[in-house]
């Protein structure tokens, strides 16, 4: 029974073209290891090196978003350190997109606060509609300005994802309870 269940999980993932799946606490060391594994896998497949860099860049921005912002989190504060773990789901795979075969994608899913849904939805909808030139302008405006409120990075992660994703990106939300929604974003390299 146990083997049957695990085999089914594996088969389901493989049928969806998924090469790597991780569900759990995301940390910088997980980022390092999975990142290296993705590069190795695509290198073995003789993927174009600029495509590999694209997939890798999307992966880094997606992972760091979960590491910094997932609302499913645990913290332990002691005198000299703070342990913080944030939970998310990641899949990296390939599929047919608009008739193009073997488009690599990086999908991420994590909990966010209910009251952040509207802001995030507006911001992503806006970014999705921008052409390359406008994305560049917005990217620069934010880099030159003050880091947006609540941001722990440069505040341009999603714009970066949009710029790198040659085949676009999509996203979705679903309410989970009164306080939280589950957010997912898939970017196509």
């Amino acid at each position: 029974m146990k083997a049957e269940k695990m085999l089914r999980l594996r088969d389901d993932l493989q049928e969806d073209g998924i090469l790597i799946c991780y569900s759990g606490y995301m940390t910088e060391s997980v980022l390092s290891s999975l990142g290296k594994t993705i590069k190795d896998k695509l290198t073995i497949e003789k993927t174009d090196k600029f495509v590999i860099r694209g997939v890798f860049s999307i992966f880094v921005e997606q992972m760091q978003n979960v590491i910094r912002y997932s609302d499913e989190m645990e913290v332990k504060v002691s005198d000299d350190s703070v342990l913080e773990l944030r939970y998310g789901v990641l899949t990296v795979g390939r599929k047919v997109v608009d008739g193009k075969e073997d488009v690599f994608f990086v999908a991420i899913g994590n909990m966010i606060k209910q009251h952040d849904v509207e802001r995030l939805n507006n911001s992503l909808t806006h970014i999705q509609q921008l052409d390359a030139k406008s994305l560049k302008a917005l990217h620069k405006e934010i880099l030159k300005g003050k880091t947006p409120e609540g941001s722990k990075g440069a505040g341009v992660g999603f714009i970066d994802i949009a710029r790198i994703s040659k085949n676009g990106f999509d996203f979705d939300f679903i309410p989970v309870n009164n306080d939280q929604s589950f957010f997912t974003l898939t970017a196509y390299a």
Partner: protein
Amino acid sequence: MDNIRIEATERTPEVDFAFDDNNYSFRGESYPEDINIFFGPLVEQLEDYFKNLEGTDVTFNFELIYFNSSTAKVLMMLFELLDTVAEQGNQVTVNWIYETSDDNMQELGEEYGEDLEYASFKLVAQDV
């Protein structure tokens, strides 16, 4: 100011700051675990050293293969700093070195370079 040389790691670039001949470079990939821990002290030392610099030739080479969005913010700050250094009376040359046919790095270089008013900027395509 003592020269700084830090070897590249998987997530941080090689750093070569030769204060004695005003030649500086970053080389490699940049997506540090903690952006402030890695770049904070480096930027601080550059700011300190450049503060009173005048009439000097300064060369800064950016030879990056990949960098994440947090690093992008630091680079923007450095470009602004270098333009200020040029404005206060130094001959500043910024070289953005990228692999030929890496359109993404070329575009990013153009994006940073186009705002330099006083420093001279060169895009350098390199065959690998």
